[in-house]
């Protein structure tokens, strides 16, 4: 592999894991997180947007984070920098569950 190719590959990883990771939107509709499971790269900002006519609330299973109640059209964002799996649910309707997988 040439030096140029190595440089290109390194640049790709920096982009892939750094501040430029593509942001992700999870829509809350009909009492479901859509998509219910997403895989993102470290550094990704995940935004939940509630489109239901009833508020929802994003809570990590062990309450490591908790959003404010999201009324219709409101959003909540979190940036995930460490690899791992995050399980969350709706604090108002706990049968609603979702998962975020953070891996490089």
């Amino acid at each position: 592999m040439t030096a140029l190719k190595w440089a290109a590959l390194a640049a790709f990883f920096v982009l892939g894991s750094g501040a430029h990771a593509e942001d992700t939107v999870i829509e809350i509709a009909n009492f479901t997180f859509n998509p219910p499971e997403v895989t993102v790269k470290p550094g990704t900002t995940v935004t939940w947007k509630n489109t239901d006519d009833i508020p929802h609330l994003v809570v990590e299973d062990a309450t490591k984070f908790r959003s404010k109640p999201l009324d219709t059209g409101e959003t909540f964002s979190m940036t995930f920098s460490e690899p791992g799996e995050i399980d969350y649910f709706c604090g108002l309707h706990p049968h609603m569950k979702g998962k975020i997988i953070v891996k490089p």
Partner: protein
Amino acid sequence: MTGDNEFEGGISRRHALECMLWAGTGVLWGLSGGVPRSIGLLDGAAAAEAASGFTFLQISDSHVGFDKPANPHALDTLKEAIDRLKALPQKPAFMLHTGDITHLSKPDQFDNAAQLIGSAGVQVHYVPGEHDIVDEGTGKAYLERYGRNTKGAGWYSFDDHGVHFIGLVNVANLKAGGLGSLGSEQLEWLEDDLKPLRASTPIVVFAHIPLWSVYPSWGWGTDDAAVALGYLKRFGSVTVLNGHIHQLMQKVEGNVTFHTARSTAFPQPAPGAAPSPGPMLVPAEKLRSLLGITSVSYSQGKEALAITDTALADR
């Protein structure tokens, strides 16, 4: 119906109750010696009330602050419900509010609710719904207003006219994937609270989320309700009043009558009848037939309490 054929009796009784529920609003429920009978429409309710002299009201799910298409004027329909109460010929002994007083636990929503409900001039016993504890302090705002003389997240009991009333909280500390939850601390308190009571004491339990499994895939049930109902088994008359599902639903199991009240804010679909339990949009002229209040009468010597549901549209 004979006492040694309880199974058959249970079926026919339940069937009869289902039929009566479909008969619509304004029917007075009477249970005498375990046999349900419809006493009549609303004037019948007034007659029964005059005979016993003890009636209380249940209102639920006022969602003050809700302004979405299913009802852009939730405060107006709450006012109509309170006006109904004010117009009663005989004032109820008190009122139970089975939660979701507010839509988003905001101070102005609590203020508006308190002002309007307070204008009825009747004592109100509250339990919180999940919408009442989404403030930053997860329930602090509710407890500051309604938590005096309560335990934990706001549970308590009191006695009135020989009936033991128990307000339970099944909307706090909810766990991922679960339903409503009472939690071990509250269950222990309940067991102790019931201990000194004679089995003949009529019991009324009120809580926001149904204490029976209405439709678990929409979260309409309480995970540890069976433990609470176990403690209530020895009592001859138990009435469980809930809200949360914004529609009438009734079930009788042994000595326990379960009943859910209408909302005063917006209706929700029947279990499984829509993709989600979200607010149900109905034609404006139909809305008030799906909102309403519940009146409960107790007659000494009767096994069960008489429950009357009145829609805002009923005349």
